[in-house]
């Protein structure tokens, strides 16, 4: 079997075996949730509840503010204690809604399956449902999914690419979903296919997850009305990046600076699909997610399902506490994840991993020896060493002219750099400067 892939990229240490075979388990319902109103790319949602209001599971907490925004719902029975300002993992401030949870009533809550007439669905009702459920891209980018599924009328969408790649080291939540919720996942594909009538549906999975490839293939054979092509991919990072996955799965190239819509493709993460199924068949909006808690600094690594807003302390407790001296805490994976200064954050729709590293060397940068390994690694075909040099020299216009903004910060360049130059940090610095000063 020849495996497809994209050009360039790297092979980071993978660290997945620790959690890959662990079934998803529910975290004990937390006493308190802290739910940020901004969990997606775009405008923060606007709270529709006030301090003291009682809320139910699935009840709307915040409404989308405009088109590029996403709703936020309550995962639990409880009472809104207060609304506070706190930083998000990435550093920006956000309002957080604090809910005192009524654990017993929440535990007693059952979601009722509802009958769905697939034939009655059309594109508008599908997209409307996705928006109502507050679904965002669960691969980490957290772009509101209904926006992704609202192509301009000029764009002809013919292909759906399902992202089951999960190329970030450590993370296994998507892997587990493909094994444990295969049927639901494919139900969501049927719903989407109702709305869009795709010519091709491609399901990209890296070959290091043979059990997921087998499970999905088996389940796909049972829904003949929706033909799905399973595409096993060669293991390589960052294959889960949209442009790389599209190239790997169907050989199409998204033009630089453009969206996949331009070439008729929509990419959806497997987690996003499960969330769609939850809404259409159970009326359950996006109120919880699976997160991989791993790393040498945690006692028991686990794949946990937890309500959105669960404080990270609760996740640590569910994993038996720290193991040794934790040097670094990451939300997300080690390649694109964000380091946290404290544990004082909570689970958001985009948190795919919570990693505890005991060894975190912070090596000094040494001079660039022009080995150009970054050039050979960059999946966007950029010249990272030049971009970093321009950033250091404050030559931001030159950096922009060298396609600075095509960098999506996958970290491949910095990963391979033998001089340990913080290429991504320098590129981010230049990007921010260019954006703020409108260069």
């Amino acid at each position, binding site marked *: 079997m020849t495996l497809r892939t994209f050009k360039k990229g790297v092979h980071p240490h993978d660290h997945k075996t620790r959690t890959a075979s662990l079934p998803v388990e529910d975290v004990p319902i937390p006493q308190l949730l802290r739910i940020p109103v901004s969990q997606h790319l775009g405008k923060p949602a606007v709270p529709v509840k006030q301090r003291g209001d009682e809320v139910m599971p699935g009840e709307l907490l915040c409404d989308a503010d405009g088109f590029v925004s996403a709703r936020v719902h309550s995962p639990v029975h409880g009472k809104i204690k207060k609304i506070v300002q706190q930083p998000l993992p990435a550093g920006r401030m956000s309002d957080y809604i604090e809910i005192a949870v009524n654990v017993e009533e929440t535990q007693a809550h059952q979601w009722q399956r509802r009958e769905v007439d697939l034939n009655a669905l059309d594109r508008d009702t599908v997209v409307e449902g996705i928006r109502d459920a507050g679904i965002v891209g669960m691969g980490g980018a957290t772009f509101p999914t209904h926006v992704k599924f609202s192509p301009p009328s000029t764009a002809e969408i013919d292909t759906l690419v399902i992202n089951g790649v999960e190329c970030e*080291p450590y993370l296994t939540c998507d892997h587990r979903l493909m094994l444990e919720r295969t049927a639901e996942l494919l139900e969501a594909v049927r719903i989407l296919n109702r709305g869009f009538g795709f010519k091709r549906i491609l399901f990209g999975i890296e070959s290091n997850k043979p059990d997921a490839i087998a499970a999905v293939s088996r389940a796909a054979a049972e829904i003949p009305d929706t033909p799905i092509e399973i595409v096993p991919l060669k293991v390589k990072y960052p294959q889960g990046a949209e442009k790389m996955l599209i190239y790997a799965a169907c050989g199409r190239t998204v033009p630089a600076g453009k969206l996949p819509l331009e070439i008729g493709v929509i990419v959806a993460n497997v987690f996003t699909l499960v969330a769609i199924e939850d809404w259409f068949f159970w009326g359950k909006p996006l109120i919880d997610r699976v997160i991989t808690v791993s790393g040498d600094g945690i006692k028991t690594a686990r794949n946990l399902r937890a309500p959105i807003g669960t404080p990270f302390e609760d996740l640590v407790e569910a994993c038996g506490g*720290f193991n040794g001296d934790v040097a670094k805490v990451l939300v997300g994976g*080690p390649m694109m994840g964000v380091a946290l200064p404290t544990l004082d954050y909570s689970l958001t729709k985009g948190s795919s991993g919570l990693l505890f590293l005991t060894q975190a060397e912070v090596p000094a940068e040494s001079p660039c020896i*022009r080995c150009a*390994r970054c050039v050979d690694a960059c999946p966007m075909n950029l010249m990272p060493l030049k971009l970093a040099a321009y950033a250091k020299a404050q030559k931001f216009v030159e950096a922009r002219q060298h396609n600075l903004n095509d960098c999506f910060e996958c970290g491949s360049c910095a990963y391979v750099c033998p*001089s340990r130059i913080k290429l991504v940090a320098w590129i981010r610095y230049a990007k921010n400067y260019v954006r703020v000063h409108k260069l």
Partner: protein
Amino acid sequence: MSARAEGFILTSSPHDSAADTTQRIMFSVVITLLPAMVMSVFYFGLRVLGLYVLAIASCLVTESLTRRARGRSPWSIADGSAVVTAVLLVMVLPPEISPVALVVGCVVAIFLGKEVFGGIGSNVFNPALVGRAFLSAAYPVQITTWTTPNRVFAFLPQGIDAQTQATPLAAARFEGIYEALPNLLFGQIGGSIGETGSIFIVAGGIAMLALRLIRWEMVVSLLGTVFVLTGIPHLVDPGSFADPVFHLFAGGLMLGAVYMATDMVTTPYTRVGNVIFGVGAGTLVVVIRLFGGYPEGVMFAILLMNAVTPIINRYTDNRVFGAQTAKAGEGAQ
């Protein structure tokens, strides 16, 4: 909760890195050079071992002194790049080079070849070749005095150098006598310390390719250019022009193609740039060998291409992924 609850290390992503460091790369290069180094001691005697030691010491001392004078941390001694320069410089010098000349060459290589440009990573020219070029002007007699190697491989035929006292390239160029290929491969010829046993350099090159320390595009384009450009005149007039295989394995070409033209710092970034460099250097080698005043031209060819590398780097950026269709919208940027 045990362990510290705050004060975690904050750094920008990515939070993991590949194993290779500058230091590891440099010492890997030295390790791949070991077979050729060991053979050079067999060919030319223990004196050569002393030269390696002297050169490494001179380069390290020069580097640490200049670093200190520039107010920088002398960490760069540990990165191993001075060791690579020292070993390569010895390898491109004749066996009877005097210790004084060698030390002068080392000081020039490190100081003028590297540190004045700003140290490791900033130099334009290959430091070892800068040292070699300086010595060919300062010690013109020593640098062209060749000795007959010890007979290490007894099964090989008697080499021609016993009669001519010349390198195979000089003998071919000026006397029309061609050395047999086995002698070229196994170093039973006159020549610079480390360049004669081509087969051991090829072995080092294969190891470096396997370790991804060098790019095949550079080696193949350089050697391929020399092969083609020496093959054409040979086909036309085999009597006056040596065959292309002879050219590949004679003189310093193999050492230059594997260890000098592949120097990361002084050669282009992209694969296209590497091919341009390789074709350019290969052409210059052939022009000098066939038409120049010297029998050998690898040093000049590589130094000249080093000089144009910044320009190659300016015009050979990789095209961004998705560029072909983005042309129309580019004006918006």
